[in-house]
């Protein structure tokens, strides 16, 4: 027995054993349970078939939550991939002094929790004419706005919070990717007379693709499951006219606040399906599948 445990044949299975157990107990079992619960009325303890799902399809608030989450995700993808990539490219210059200092500063917001960061942003977007953003627009002669009461201004506040927290982290991901690209390539290109922009288009961008796909994947995940940022801006899960409600916010409202476990599990399953669909689409578009087949 002992000999078997130490054998080279069994060792790999011992190494991955903790992962297999984790997957079975903490992922597959709950997902399976979630599917089962989504066909039940948990409080009344009975099976209801597809009732929860058909109710969801006519639930306007749920669609609003889905729309808000998707809108937020798309916004973060547009802002948090190209700009950090550009900044990383500029930072990856040996002649630039203080690059290390900048990197640490940019990383700082990610170290503050969403509870702290969200509270700061809520107070910067306060309704009083003395709050930061009302002072800024006051400087341009505009009267104070109730930022967190309008849908567009809320969207702006949420995206700004996301940019503040994640720009630095994404810069580091792209920098790590850039540092794996051999400098010879750039030197050769520059001898051939390629401009910086051409070098970026023809060398950095294609070779950064694995990093970009990774950042894209985690951004889709984070965008679609956003909840806490909005909760902090609105001091709770309720926002005027549900302008800050997200899919997870709705799941929390139904499952925890209203104790409608079955209905909430149906929301969770829909979220799972949306995440999977977006990711498959993304991997198809970026051609990651094709490479696996080779």
């Amino acid at each position, binding site marked *: 027995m002992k000999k078997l445990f130490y054998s080279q044949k069994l060792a790999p299975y011992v190494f991955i054993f903790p*992962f297999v157990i984790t*997957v079975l107990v903490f992922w597959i079992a709950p997902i399976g349970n979630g599917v089962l619960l989504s066909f039940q009325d948990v409080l009344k303890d009975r099976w209801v078939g597809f009732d929860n799902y058909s109710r969801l399809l006519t639930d306007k608030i749920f669609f609003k939550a889905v729309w808000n989450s998707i809108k937020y995700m798309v916004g973060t993808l547009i802002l948090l991939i190209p700009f950090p990539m550009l900044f990383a490219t500029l930072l990856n210059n040996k002649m630039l002094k203080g690059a290390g200092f900048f990197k640490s500063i940019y990383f700082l917001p990610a170290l503050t929790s969403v509870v702290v960061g969200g509270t700061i942003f809520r107070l910067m977007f306060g309704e009083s004419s003395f709050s930061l953003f009302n002072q800024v627009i006051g400087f341009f002669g505009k009267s104070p706005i109730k930022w967190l009461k309008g849908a567009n201004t809320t969207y702006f506040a949420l995206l700004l919070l996301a940019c503040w927290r994640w720009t630095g982290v994404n810069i580091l991901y792209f920098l790590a990717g850039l540092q794996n690209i051999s400098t010879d390539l750039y030197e050769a290109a520059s001898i051939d007379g390629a401009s910086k922009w051409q070098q970026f288009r023809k060398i950095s961008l294609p070779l950064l693709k694995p990093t970009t796909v990774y950042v894209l994947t985690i951004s889709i995940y984070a965008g679609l499951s956003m909840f*806490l940022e909005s909760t902090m801006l609105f001091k709770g899960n309720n926002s005027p006219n549900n302008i800050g409600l997200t899919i997870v916010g709705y799941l929390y409202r139904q499952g925890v606040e209203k104790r409608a476990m079955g209905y909430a599990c149906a929301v969770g399953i829909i979220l799972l399906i949306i995440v999977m669909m977006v990711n498959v689409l993304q991997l198809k578009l970026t051609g990651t599948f094709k490479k696996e087949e080779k």
Partner: protein
Amino acid sequence: MGHKGMKSKNQKSKMEIWLSTILFVILAILILLPIWLLFIASFKPGGDLLQYGLNLELNIDRMSLDNFVLLFKGQHEYWTWFFNSIFLTAVTVISTLAVSAFVGYGFAAYDFKGKNILFIIVLLILSIPLEVVMLPLYKQMSVMKLMDNYIAIVLPFMAHASTIFFFRQYLLGIPKSLMEAGRIDGATEYGIFLKLIVPIMKPAFSAMAILNGMNAWNNYLWPLLVVRSSDKYTLTLGLNTLINPYGDNYSLLISGSLFSIIPIFLLFICFQKYFIEGMTAGAVKG
């Protein structure tokens, strides 16, 4: 002619450096601004914050150390939450790094039956939000009698998909001859991992200590569901109870929030040296 061309090229790249430096300074100021606002607000009366929100105003007459006196001497549970968070973060980081490195090595070093399918599962889980399984998992935890217990916060995430993925990437770059040499020296498979591999994983451990430490220190939703008693609250849970409909305690919130950044910032400073190096070596490669 050629000389002249060289010179203008040099000037051009100097110009570029200047422009990017200006850009990065502006970016740094924008990023630091909210933290600066938090910092100066910590010297203002809590009531001001409730009334006026955060702004750049520096009125020395209205500023005092009262909020910090309250933080260090007042009657509240802040320090309980603070040390709970430190404890929980330390336990989470150590156990996650240990277990995930173990698993990551298994994926990187061996070929075995079922490896591909298992690795696809790693990638799948990497892209599934915890929130999808949150409610059923919560039910499961109460059946397992783990409610209000830190075990429920740590145990499900020790074999952490994205950390495993990172360690695997990192270890793929290590030559197989190292392991062969270990075997020839008579080391067991686990001995090779412990004595030969772990020591060279330092940069990878640093990078993952920062990322996992950050997540653990700032974790909110799952602990919110699991933790019941207020003496087990973490810092994020506790801070959030300070703003409630029955009375906002902004004085403690603001000084406490500022203070909450310090431990995780220290962790970052400690490991920062290896951070980029680790991230680079473990970066996703084509």
